[in-house]
């Protein structure tokens, strides 16, 4: 189905589906992190997103900013490590940019996601090719924006973003890590997909899946 707007239920569904995906993929994310990090990305994301969904279910948000600020603060305070501040800042900035609305149109969602990316860059200081979540987030949002030039349908833009996200995720395998704990491995970081890039790809998979539902 096509969507010119995305409402609060769908956005809540996005976060819930992301929780489901990181939970299903917990071993895969941990395996990736064992190779070049400290083997906690799967459990950290599962714990963090679990707390996010629990909080939403306990007190559903009334507006988009409330939803994402709540999700961001929950991640920041429950995860620790680097993924807590990075994902937390991503959602916090989405909330701040979206404002107290009940739904977002395509340009509104694009602007909110872009602000989220800017927040991740400000927090983590990553650049293209550093082998981080940036290498998925940036090309995915570029694809999202490009798709919206052709049509105002959020569903097809999300599909384009997910496709770019998968390409970006797979491309991190050949990269040399220049940020985070993986960077201490130097050349030994080559040949492994970045765990943060993998979880970020799940974020776009979740968005595509939730928008595809009737």
């Amino acid at each position, binding site marked *: 189905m096509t969507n010119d707007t995305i409402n609060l239920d769908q956005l809540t569904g996005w976060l819930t589906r992301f929780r489901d995906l990181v939970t299903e993929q917990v071993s895969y994310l941990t395996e990736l992190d064992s190779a070049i990090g*400290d*083997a*906690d990305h799967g*459990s*950290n994301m599962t714990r963090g997103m679990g707390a996010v969904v629990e909080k939403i279910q306990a007190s559903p948000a009334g507006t988009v900013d409330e939803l994402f600020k709540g999700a961001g603060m929950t991640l*920041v*305070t*429950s*995860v*620790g*490590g*680097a993924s*807590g*501040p*990075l994902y*937390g*800042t991503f959602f916090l900035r989405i909330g701040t940019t979206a404002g107290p609305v009940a739904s977002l149109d395509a340009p509104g969602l694009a602007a909110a996601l872009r602000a989220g990316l800017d927040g991740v860059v400000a*927090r*983590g200081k990553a650049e293209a090719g550093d082998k981080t979540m940036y290498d998925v987030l940036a090309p995915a949002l570029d694809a999202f924006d490009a798709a919206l030039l052709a049509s105002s349908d959020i569903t097809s833009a999300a599909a384009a973003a997910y496709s770019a996200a998968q390409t970006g995720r797979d491309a991190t395998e050949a990269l*040399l890590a*220049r*940020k*985070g*704990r993986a*960077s*201490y*491995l*130097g050349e*030994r970081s080559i040949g492994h997909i970045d765990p943060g890039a993998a979880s970020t790809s799940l974020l776009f998979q979740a968005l595509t899946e939730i928008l595809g539902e009737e």
Partner: protein
Amino acid sequence: MKKLINSPETVLADSLVGVAAAHPELRVDHVNRIIYRADPTRAGKVALLSGGGTGHEPLHGGFVGVGMLDAACAGAVFTSPTPDQMLEATKVVDSGAGVLHIVKNYTGDVMNFEMGAELAAAETGIEVAVVVVNDDVAVEDSTFTAGRRGVGTTVLLEKIAGAAAEEGRDLAAVAAVARQVNESGRSMGVALSSCTVPAAGKPTFELAEGEMEIGVGIHGEPGRRRVPLAGAAEIARLLVEPILADLDFTGAPTIVMVNGLGGTPLIELYVMYAEVRKVLDAAGITVARSLVGNYITALDMAGCSVTILKADDDLLQLWDAPVNTSGLRWGM
């Protein structure tokens, strides 16, 4: 995995219960996982706050007390604490003179402390200064990595900056002393065995019987290279030479620490200290003060690290000042 625990999930909470029971001179906030001095910060004294993942004890909680830290935020084992902990601790320890955050240079620690300081600024207006410790010479190509890791110098910095705060210096002066220590301290470590993170249940890395990892980090991060096990004299040379190549320590008094990583007996640390002194004597380095023991550990990892700090009269005077913590105590 054989450990003295109830379950991997409760290691941190259970250990904080033990800290509170053993140390009436400390106050433990079990909800926020913060260790404070039992007495509130003296009015006008700059407060020192540090913290990080646990598993490095006595760092940081064992250094809370007169002459060192005012509070330490505890994260899960090898995982940074979260910004809400730093915000809460900052609010509690500030006496109006400001708070110095002492952060080891790891991506997670830096980001979480940064967010904690931002929240403190937004909510309270408390003046916060930050010093990031990055003294590990094992990380060579720091331009292309997350930078050098914060290791042994953290211990010396918390002691010296703590004494400066106790003396009544203001926030800018305490932060300046802390930065001087960071810029003048260098460390290098060696692992003879891996550590086992309770939640992982198995060793972080494999090291064969006849091997050692030179330049290992305090979380089991890889070092510069893996080489055949050698005698203490050769290991001392492998640790001290890269430190001396990185900074000129001649012509100044130094403070030298040989630190155990958690699984090495003290008698071996003294064997190492003897060999480290021989290397330093041969290089014409003056050792003014020494510290040998387990101060910044990596759970049950066998091995040690060497830290050398280029001091001056002011730093030595601050080093000698009284300190009364569970991990470091003299002069009182």
